[in-house]
């Protein structure tokens, strides 16, 4: 993962559930959680190194609680990821969101490996 960037970018996100528009500030690449402040719908978004939105999708839950803002999701210590979940995490790092993404994140969270920045 890269160093914190001094750049920041305003991004418009249209909720996949209620279509309301939110503007969030992005300054890091990687996986982020976003909860729509209007309807509470959780989403995941993947930010590329140029701070572009690579993927944005609604999910049934995210490992973050705070609406209005986005929270970056990272793994505390990648060396501790079990072999069963390593391919999944490698895919995420390459910018690919697999179909059952939420299950992979839930497994990592249940193992105490996920860290939510800004919570």
């Amino acid at each position, binding site marked *: 993962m890269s160093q914190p960037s001094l750049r920041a970018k305003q991004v418009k996100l249209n909720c996949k559930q209620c279509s309301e528009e939110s503007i969030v500030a992005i300054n890091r690449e990687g996986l982020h959680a976003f909860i729509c402040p209007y309807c509470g719908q959780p989403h995941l978004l993947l930010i590329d190194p140029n701070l572009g939105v690579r993927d944005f999708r609604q999910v049934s839950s995210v490992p973050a609680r705070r609406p209005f803002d986005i929270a970056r999701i990272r793994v505390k210590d990648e060396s501790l990821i*079990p*072999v*069963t979940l390593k391919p999944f995490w490698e895919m995420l790092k390459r910018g690919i969101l697999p179909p059952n993404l939420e299950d992979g994140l839930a*497994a990592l969270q249940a*193992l105490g490996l996920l860290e939510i920045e800004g919570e």
Partner: protein
Amino acid sequence: MWKRAREVDSYVTWRLYTTLKETGLLQKLQEKPWWEFADRDLARWVCDILVEKGYARRSGDVISVSSAPERPQITTMDAADLAPVVDRVMTLLPRALETGEKPNLFEEKAYYSKVAGSLVYKAIIEAAIEEMGLSRLSSEAVVADVFSRIGTSVMTLLEMTPARVIAVEPQPENIEVIKRTVRLSGQENRVSFVQASPEEMVLPEKVDVVFMANVIHWIMNPRLALVRARENLKEKGSVRIIQQVYEGTGLTVPFIHYFFGAVRPPPTKEELIRLIRDVNLKVERQLGSFGIVALRATL
């Protein structure tokens, strides 16, 4: 697989030695017999590692240290990943030896996940599935994976065999991890769950294979677990056991387990076979080297 296991083995030995040396325990082990330590099992185990790896000689019930291991080269990812876990374990060793307080890092979930989800462990299971010919099972076959932990064995069985799998695991948090991991792989229709300890398991159906990977030294009553395995077998079914035993890498790698909830050192090969025969199971085929035994037992 052997290269990784050997590197972990050397790292545990070196770390153990340096920890004992730095805390003055190396001296104590040379003065006081192992059975005078508060945790006797652990003290004996420590002595056995130093003796078996060639850094000490036994003289009666004490040891006499002859040389110091060199810091091992780590070249494999898995050994590199496990090193911090070994370091963590060794911080608890002096207290455990001297007070007899049984350490349990199980609550440190992230470390536990590495122990139960290491590449070394997966490689051992893969080799055993291969050697035991389990990939030739039919898609109708049912395998009960006993004491699944976080699902390394379940996922490996799903990858390498066409069988259905019943995961037997006592901890609900672990079951949640396995469920999610199975769903991530899209194979939820091949797996069902029984939340029970190996000693208490009652399966919803009789199975073709009861698969027990490194269960014996983790549970209070291994004999009872084998009785349950037997009860849940189809007439032509078999129990397949992969077990680290008290020799070679089986001395050092399971040393880590002791700090994560394993209740004792692994059995010797002879103890394991006696245990199986004691519940009227026939040992039909056994393979193994370097501290790991894979065997098949039938009714």
